[in-house]
C-alpha cells in the first residue's frame, strides 16, 4: 500500500515532466526554431549592441526633444491613472461587499470592472485606434480603461479588508450611508489606495512607452522613429532616458508610500 503510494507519486511527476518536454519539442519543430543557433547568436547581438547602440555626443542635441516627449508621456500616464482612480473609487464603493448599496448594483459594478481589467492596455489601444486615430488621446484612454479596471479590483479588496469593522460600528450608531463612507471607509483605506495609485502610475509609465509605438505618440513613437531611421545612437539615448525616468518615479513613489503608510 505504502510502496504503491510513493510509486504512484513518482509516476505522476515523471509523467508531467515528460508531457512538458514533448510539448516543448513539438513547439520547436513546428516553429523550426534552432536552439543552438538561437543561443550562439546572443554574443553577436551583444557585440552589435555595444558597437552601435549607445548615445553619442551629437545625439545629445536631440535631448530637449526627447525630454519633451518623455514629459508628455509621464503626464498622460499620471492623468490617466488619477482620473481612472476617481472612477474606480466610485465603482469600488458600489462593488465592495462592505459598502455596496445592494447585491444587484454590486455585481454590476464589479462585472464592468472585471471586463475592463481583463482587456490588456495594448488591446485597448488597438480598439481605440479606430475611434481616436493615432493621437495621445488614444493612449490616454487605453491607460485610463486599464487603470480603472485594475484599481477598482484593488480598491474593493482594500475597502473590504480595512473598513468592515468600523463600518459595522457606525451602522450600529445609526449613521447614514454617506457619513459612513466619508468618516470610516475613506479615512481607513486612503493610504493603501494611494499606494495602489502610485503602483499604477509606475506600471502605466512602462506601458505608455509601448502604447506610444501603437498610437504614434509620446516617447514610444520617438524611439520607433529614430530606430527605424537607423539612428541607433539617438534611439539608445531614448532608452537611457526612459530607464532614468522610471527609476526616478519609483524612488519618488517609494518615498511617498513610506510617508503615508
Amino acid at each position: 500500500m505504502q510502496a504503491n503510494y510513493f510509486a504512484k507519486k513518482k509516476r505522476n511527476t515523471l509523467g508531467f515532466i515528460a508531457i512538458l518536454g514533448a510539448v516543448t519539442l513539438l513547439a520547436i519543430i513546428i516553429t523550426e526554431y534552432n536552439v543552438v543557433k538561437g543561443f550562439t547568436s546572443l554574443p553577436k547581438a551583444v557585440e552589435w549592441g555595444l558597437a552601435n547602440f549607445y548615445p553619442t555626443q551629437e545625439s545629445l542635441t536631440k535631448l530637449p526633444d526627447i525630454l519633451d516627449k518623455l514629459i508628455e508621456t509621464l503626464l498622460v500616464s499620471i492623468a490617466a491613472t488619477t482620473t481612472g482612480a476617481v472612477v474606480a473609487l466610485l465603482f469600488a464603493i458600489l462593488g465592495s461587499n462592505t459598502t455596496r448599496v445592494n447585491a444587484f448594483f454590486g455585481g454590476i459594478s464589479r462585472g464592468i470592472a472585471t471586463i475592463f481589467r481583463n482587456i490588456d492596455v495594448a488591446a485597448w489601444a488597438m480598439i481605440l485606434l479606430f475611434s481616436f486615430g493615432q493621437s495621445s488621446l488614444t493612449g490616454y484612454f487605453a491607460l485610463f480603461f486599464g487603470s480603472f479596471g485594475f484599481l477598482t479590483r484593488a480598491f474593493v479588496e482594500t475597502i473590504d479588508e480595512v473598513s468592515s469593522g468600523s463600518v459595522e460600528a457606525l451602522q450600529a450608531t445609526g449613521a447614514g450611508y454617506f457619513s459612513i463612507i466619508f468618516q470610516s471607509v475613506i479615512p481607513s483605506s486612503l493610504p493603501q489606495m494611494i499606494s495602489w495609485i502610485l503602483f499604477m502610475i509606475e506600471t502605466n509609465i512602462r506601458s505608455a512607452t509601448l502604447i506610444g509605438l501603437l498610437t504614434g505618440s509620446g516617447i514610444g513613437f520617438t524611439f520607433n522613429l529614430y530606430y527605424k531611421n537607423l539612428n541607433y545612437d539617438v534611439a539608445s539615448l531614448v532608452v537611457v532616458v526612459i530607464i532614468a525616468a522610471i527609476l526616478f518615479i519609483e524612488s519618488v513613489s517609494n518615498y511617498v508610500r513610506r510617508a503615508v503608510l
Partner: protein
Amino acid sequence: MTALLEVNHVSKQFGSDMKALSDVNFSVQEGEFVSIIGPSGAGKSTLLRCINRMIGASSGEIIFDNMNVMNLKKKDLKLIRTKIGMIFQHYNLVNRLSVIENTLHGNLGKKSTLAGVLGLYSQEEKEQAVNILHVLGLEEHIYKRADQLSGGQKQRVGIARALIQNPRMLLCDEPIASLDPNSAKIIMDHLRNISRTMGITVLINLHQVDVALKYSDKIIGINHGQVVYNGSPKNITKEDIQRIYGSEAEDLIFDVGGIHAS
C-alpha cells in the same frame, strides 16, 4: 421598573436549514446588567445583532422602548440605533483617526448627511467627548491615533463612542474576549459603573462564566439557539451550567461552587 427590552418568540434562520436562534424569549428591565453566556456558535452574537437589527430576525418580535424593532422604517431604525450603543470584540475603531474623532463618531447618527460627511461637530459635542474620555481615564490619549493604543485602551474608546450617543442601552459583543485579565477587569468595572451611575441598561455576551456571575443582575444561558437558563446568577447550579455548555461541563476550567463561596 418597566421592561426596556422584550424579546418574544424570536427565531433566526440562515439559509434553508441553519437555525441560529429558535423561539428566544426574555425581557430586560431598565438599568439591568444582563449577561448572555453559552458555547461558541450558540447564537449569542446573532441574538445581540438582532436587537438593533444589524441582522434581521426571521420571526417573532423585539420591543425596545415600546417600539417593535422588527417592522421599523429605515428612518425610525436609525433613530432607535442612536439610542443603543454597541461595543465589539475587535473594537471596530477607525484605526487611522484620533481617539476623539473615533469618540465623536458616536454622534453621526444624529447628524444631517452634510454635517456627517464633513465631520462637523459642535463645541458642545467636543466638550462632551473630552468629558467622557476623562471618565474612562483616556485624557492623555485624546489626540493619539487609535492604532497607537493598547487593546484595553481601544476598548475604552469603543465605550466612549457608545456613551456619547447618550444611549438607553449598551449591547456588548464579547468586549473582553481579546483582552488580558487586567484590562478585562478595567473594562468590566467601567461597564458596571456605567450601568449603576448612569442607569444605562447593559446586555453583554461573555465567554467567561465567572465574570458573568460576578457582574450580572441576570444571566441568560443559550445553547443551540435556545434559551436554557434565565435567572439570577445566585441561583445558578452546576446542572444549569451543564445544560448551557453541554456534556463537557464537568471539565470546565473554573469551579462553580468556588464562585458562590467567594
